[in-house]
């Protein structure tokens, strides 16, 4: 079976667009969460979220048309260009048909859809931007990435809420492994920090209650005083490549993607199950053909909802047994917020950076231990000089999809 390596990384994150800078800030426990405002019908609406530091002019030339690109598409195009540049891979007419795109997004082109409805329902019932369909369709991001780089292979968009981009990377991995493509640009994007975006999540009462003393500490995964998730935005893309081809061209290899597990909790639209999450982790381990004891770090889904963090902790204990108590498990959502459809890809990238830097990022704001969450969550500060050879990244979604990725240090 063909093996798959990661040769390029690209991020647009609430902690910047350079992967190593992002990782350094995470290591220091630096949170990007803060107060943001959106325009609503009753004026300014304030929310707590992690906004991406994104300047379109840094990513698009003056002549490039961006008025039909939603913010989510702009994020993904910028992240994909960075990942492809980082991999130094060349697309030629001969190989373009073997290059594909797999992208995950949960809520799609939120801002453009909001603008379209405001225009149509409140301003003029007969006047809508003519290319609205092309802007808001969920596969707009994947399509534009392929057009920009001339990628003629499989072009697929996955939408399974918070597991979307982990699934996209996992499915892209299979495309290469089973010979349908040689290179896949894979990842996810989300841009939901709009008035309607916030209101839909507020209505569900899953957002964290703002920390009035320190808004940046609002997201507290695995802490007894956690109160819910904090929304974030951004994109993360990786270049996946067939290992022998990557070696032949002397590519820099970040890690080998070795396992993908996919399962579902078929009982409730939001309620996670220990068994479903554990099954996805077990399938990923079996797919990687490794023992649970080989895993050195788990980047947890860790949303900071009461239910997720207990369920995930129990699932990790079920899968890892005794090893669970020696295994560092952290939630970087404490600093980046929940990037929903982009979360899995962002956290996969962070997991690869843990291998690259031999360091484990922390769970920030974990102040009050929860007896029901009794693992080593790396509270506060990251740990340097660690032996990180094999990492697991967990993503679990509303709707029940569980997607788990395992990567390990590339063999010399």
């Amino acid at each position, binding site marked *: 079976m063909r093996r798959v390596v990661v040769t390029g990384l690209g991020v647009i994150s609430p902690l910047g667009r350079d992967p190593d800078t992002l990782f350094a800030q995470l290591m220091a426990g630096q949170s990007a969460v803060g107060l943001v405002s959106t325009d609503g019908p009753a004026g300014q609406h304030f929310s707590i979220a992690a906004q991406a530091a994104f300047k379109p002019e840094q990513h698009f030339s003056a*002549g490039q048309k961006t008025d039909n690109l939603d913010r989510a598409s702009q994020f993904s195009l910028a992240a994909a260009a960075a990942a492809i540049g980082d991999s130094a891979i060349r697309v030629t007419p001969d190989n373009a048909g073997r290059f594909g795109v797999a992208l995950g997004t949960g809520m799609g082109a939120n801002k453009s859809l909001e603008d379209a409805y405001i225009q149509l329902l409140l301003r003029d019932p*007969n006047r809508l*931007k*003519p*290319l609205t369909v*092309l802007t808001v369709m969920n596969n707009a991001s994947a399509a534009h990435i392929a057009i920009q780089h001339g990628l003629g292979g499989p072009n697929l968009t996955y939408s399974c809420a918070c597991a979307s981009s982990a699934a996209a990377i996992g499915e892209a991995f299979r495309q290469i492994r089973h010979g349908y493509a040689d290179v896949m640009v894979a990842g996810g994007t989300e841009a939901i920090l709009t008035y309607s975006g916030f209101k839909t999540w507020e209505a569900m009462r899953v957002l964290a209650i703002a920390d009035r003393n320190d808004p940046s500490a609002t997201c507290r995964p695995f802490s007894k005083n956690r109160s819910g998730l904090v929304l974030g935005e951004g994109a993360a893309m990786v270049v996946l490549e067939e290992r022998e081809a990557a070696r032949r061209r002397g590519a820099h290899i970040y890690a080998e993607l070795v396992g993908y597990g996919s399962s579902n909790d078929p009982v409730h639209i939001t309620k996670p199950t220990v068994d479903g999450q554990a099954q996805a982790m077990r399938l990923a381990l079996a797919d990687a053909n490794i023992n649970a004891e080989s895993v050195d770090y788990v980047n947890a889904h860790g949303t900071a909802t009461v239910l997720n963090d207990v369920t995930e902790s129990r699932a990790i204990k079920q899968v890892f047994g005794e090893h669970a108590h020696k295994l560092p498990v952290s939630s970087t959502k404490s600093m980046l917020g929940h990037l929903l459809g982009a979360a899995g890809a962002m956290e996969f990238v962070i997991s690869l950076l843990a291998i690259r830097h031999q360091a484990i990022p922390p769970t920030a704001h974990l102040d009050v231990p929860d007896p029901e969450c009794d693992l080593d969550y790396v509270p506060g500060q990251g740990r340097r000089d660690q032996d990180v050879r094999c990492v697991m990244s967990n993503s679990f979604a509303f709707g029940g999809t569980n997607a788990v990725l395992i990567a390990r240090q590339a063999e010399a």
Partner: protein
Amino acid sequence: MTKSTFETVQEILASKYSLPIESITPAATLESLKLDSLDLIETLFEVEDEFHIRVPQDRGEDVTIVTVQDIVDVVNKLILQQHPAQLAAGQQP
């Protein structure tokens, strides 16, 4: 300042697609300006606002737009249909 329909269409195309104004002649085909069918749809949207006209959904049935002049012809025809009162007051399309 008085402007012809052509001049207004020319300005819309030049500004929207960063085209040199001299390249937009009446006989220039949209293809030669590297404008595709989606660009045409967006251009018609702007033209509608500029001239306060509405291009009917079925415009494609009897009109084929190939050149800049074809856009001008469509606009003029719709102004005559949709704004006869303004013409009577002496405005020229």
